[in-house]
């Protein structure tokens, strides 16, 4: 279990319908690649976030498969158009089975 994992999301509180808004997301995570060895020469097991998704009112906005070469504290910035008021749901999937959620409502 990776410790100190905390998602952070920045979404504007409101937007005009059809406008593209910028969404920034960041999750604190060590993203251990599985390639490194500890002081005794034993491999350190892989522990990464392997998938990140964003949905708006149940509709997929992005769905990202992530690989071990991604560095610590993965950061995503993307744009989305907002057709109506609703809620963005962000989900991160950890190698250890943990799922981290964050929701942000937006008004039009």
């Amino acid at each position, binding site marked *: 279990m990776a410790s100190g994992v905390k998602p952070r999301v920045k979404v504007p509180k409101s937007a005009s319908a059809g406008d593209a808004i910028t969404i920034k997301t960041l999750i604190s995570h060590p993203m251990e690649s599985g390639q490194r060895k500890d002081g005794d020469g034993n491999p350190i097991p892989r522990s990464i976030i392997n998938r990140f998704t964003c949905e708006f009112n149940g509709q997929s906005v992005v769905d990202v498969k992530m690989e071990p070469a991604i560095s610590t*504290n993965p950061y995503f910035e993307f744009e989305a158009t907002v057709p109506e008021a609703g809620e963005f749901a962000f989900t991160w999937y950890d190698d250890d089975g943990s799922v981290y959620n964050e929701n942000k409502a937006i008004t039009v």
Partner: protein
Amino acid sequence: MKYKAMTAFAALAISAPIAFAGGADDDTLAIDGQEMITKTAAPAHMEETGIDTIISGWHFREDDTQSMQADTFDNPGMIAVDQAMDAWNTVEGSAEKSCASCHEGPESMQGVRAVYPKWNEEAGEVRTLAMQINDCRTNQMGADAYKYDSGPMAAMEALIAVQSRGMPVNVAIDGPVAETWEKGKELYYTRTGQLELSCASCHEENYGNYIRADHLSQGQINGFPTYRLKNAKLNTVHGRFKGCVRDTRAETYSPGSPEFVALELYVASRGNGLSVEGPSVRN
């Protein structure tokens, strides 16, 4: 194709003197719209150094790195601030207290970062912020002290620094701290290691020049603790001192040692007038 290559070459030739100059740029830093003082007149005690403008290390970094610090969301150091916020409210130790039990919100720490290290009358010593945090933890909370340059310590320093963001550094150098300050000054100008370098060799005589492929800054510490891209974590002042002294190929003082406390006081005083920026983002 050939034409394109030639224009690219020409563009490179023209932009080279600007893009590759090692000195401070003229950008202005506004963190979430709040403008910072990143260049100002040097304090009076620096008259003999030949430096008339003190410059934050922010000016010596690339635009990408600079913009990371300009937005608190983009600043990876703020993750540590969030973690320290949790620690602030966590009850620890035999007294069953958290930071919040005595100090309420971290807003109460406004202005604290700007004046440390400072004299503690009761203890009769110069205290850094880290020493004060550990004093609180051991004497008030009955908890274990943080390791001086550890992650939790850097995070807590960052949380406290954020409260003073934008306020000018204003450490006292006279009165009871004068002796320590003189000692720090002496250390600053003492050459160490096989390379026989003092702090001044790089950060006073050669700031704006290159050290290998990197730019030398004035070595200001107004932005500490600093998130460094090279190790992807917050770094404390003493951790940085240690790294610098090690790079002169010397045996270093340890973080939290009286030597480094004195040096921190002296180096902090060289930044009197610059905004507190912590946690800043650097290479």
